């Protein structure tokens, strides 16, 4: 296990270097942030002075080196709009996004796993058809439209839920369902196909031959095996989830990183864009790492 962890961490280094390189070079290409930072009446000397102080006259690779050194320390410079350290602004928004993502994942898991098992054990019945049909529909609906429709029906027309913002439990319900639907759809489909595959395995027949109940056959013998790939799927879906969160936060005016990022992109606030992208990437990578470890713990066949 120790060796695996070390190996896995070493693998992350090139990924992070390439990721930061891509982000950095895009911003480098984006051109001069100085013009945005200074008041309009600034002279050419002012610009040159600021450029000098920010190290913008250095060649590309030197600038990247400096960027990388700073990034490792979490320093992405100042946001010109907030006049504050960019990373700390992003970190302030992290709890909101985390709350939304976690609620969506819980919703998706609670829906998808029972539905996937249910339709797999009742293959080709009406229930199976209904569940697979719903999951295709869940994948086809863009989440921002789904969110808007929820707002229209459940918030505007019937006033069951607040229209937007963060605060109470009621605030998180609609955004979480909106964001979780696509993930639930994908998870349902994969849980179903995994379960179908496993229900045909020899060891399931062995269990039945022992005379144990259908419940034990389905939930102990089959699901435990089907769970292993589902964990991987959940990890892969965090990336989808974070991407979806950017849009969902916009729909519900949810004060998370996504909303901040969209504002920063519109305002060309590069420090915040870089900090947000870096943080999200790290989080996704860490979650995937956890999934990898969990996968190994669930499957006794993998040895170290």
């Amino acid at each position, binding site marked *: 296990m120790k060796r695996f962890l070390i190996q896995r961490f070493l693998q992350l280094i090139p990924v992070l270097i390439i990721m930061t390189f891509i982000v950095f070079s895009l911003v480098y290409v984006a051109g001069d942030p100085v013009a945005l930072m200074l008041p309009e009446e600034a002279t050419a000397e002012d610009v040159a002075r600021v450029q000098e102080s920010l190290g913008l006259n250095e060649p590309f690779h030197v600038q990247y080196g400096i960027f990388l050194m700073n990034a490792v320390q979490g320093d992405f410079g100042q946001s010109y709009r907030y006049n504050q350290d960019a990373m700390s602004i992003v970190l302030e928004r992290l709890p909101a996004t985390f709350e939304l993502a976690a609620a969506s994942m819980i919703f998706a898991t609670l829906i998808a796993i029972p539905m996937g098992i249910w339709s797999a054990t009742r293959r080709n019945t009406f229930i199976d058809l209904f569940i697979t049909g719903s999951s295709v529909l869940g994948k086809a609906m863009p989440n*921002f*439209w*789904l969110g*808007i429709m929820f707002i229209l029906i459940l918030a505007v027309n019937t006033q069951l839920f607040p229209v937007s913002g963060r605060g109470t439990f009621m605030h998180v319900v609609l955004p979480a369902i909106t964001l979780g639907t696509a993930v639930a759809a994908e998870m349902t489909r994969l849980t179903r196909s995994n379960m179908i595959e496993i229900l045909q395995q020899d060891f399931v027949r062995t269990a039945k031959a022992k005379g144990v109940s259908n419940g034990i056959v389905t939930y102990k013998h089959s699901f435990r095996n089907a769970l292993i790939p589902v964990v991987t799927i959940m990890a892969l879906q965090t990336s989808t989830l974070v991407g979806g969160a950017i*849009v969902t936060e916009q729909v519900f005016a949810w004060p998370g990183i996504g909303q901040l990022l969209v504002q920063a992109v519109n305002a060309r606030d590069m420090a915040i864009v870089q900090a947000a*992208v870096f943080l*999200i990437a790290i989080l996704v990578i860490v979650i995937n790492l956890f999934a990898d470890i969990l996968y190994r713990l669930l499957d006794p066949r993998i040895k170290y």
Partner: protein
Amino acid sequence: MSQQVTPEPVPEPQGPAAPDSMKKHQKKSSFVRWMKLLLKSKTGTVGFLIVMVVFIVGIFSDQIAPFGVNEQNYANMLVPPAWQEGGSSEHFLGTDNLGRDILSRIIYGTTISLLVGIFSVVVAGILGMAAGLFAGYYGGWIDTVTMRMVDAFLSIPNILFILVILTVLNPGIMTLIFAIGVTNWVIYARLIRGEVLSVKEREYVKAARSIGTKNLTIIRRHVLPNVFSTFIVISTLSVATTIILEASLSFLGMGVQPPDVSWGYMLADGRDYLATNWWLATFPGLAITITVLGIIFLGDWLRDVLDPRSQGR
């Protein structure tokens, strides 16, 4: 193996996965054959019909749309759909806050969705294919660098990358195609590299190499036919996700810019009128959902037909 008595209908191998020599004989009947296969699947047929309609609407949007895309009519602002009280048969799906016909705008939006959807998949496909072929075939450091890049791209949600690109380039249709294309290449790169690696190990490829067949010839003859069906399926389903992605970006105000119209953009517009005029935001979303549903149905059917191993997944 006596367990095999359970009679199972064996899926016959069919479709363009067959080698070239076979295709030539069957060219004439292949259209009929495909149609017969299609009609066997209900969802496949529905998907095919939706996609056909979307294509026709997208191509002939100028002829079909009853009004111009930005044709404003201040006398007819916020008219509800025809079946509602106060609706008019002239504007079947109603009008927006500037008196523009919603149906016409959805029809024009179809063209944009298809353009972005298809061309960004083409860009991603070409880039990914090239990367996958070179990485798989030449191995060594080329492979290492490519695959680490794939990992890096996969570790970040693609919408994030695209947002960063969009801060650099001015938003618009071409930018969208480029941005989506250069972030989605990784799917193809992984698929094709994997296939190349397995093909490389096969005896006939080793034999071909040993008699000095050119690398490109080997790739064309042995690798491409093997990945063709997967390539088609992934591409079809990619068009669906790309259409949603385009709509999302346009919804955020970073995709298609006026005077061009996009379903996502219309939705963002309509959100401001949600409390009073529900139809502004409802119909563009419905258009996206139906289109994507059609493409997914078609793609799933294609997968079942082209790759019998994955049936029912």
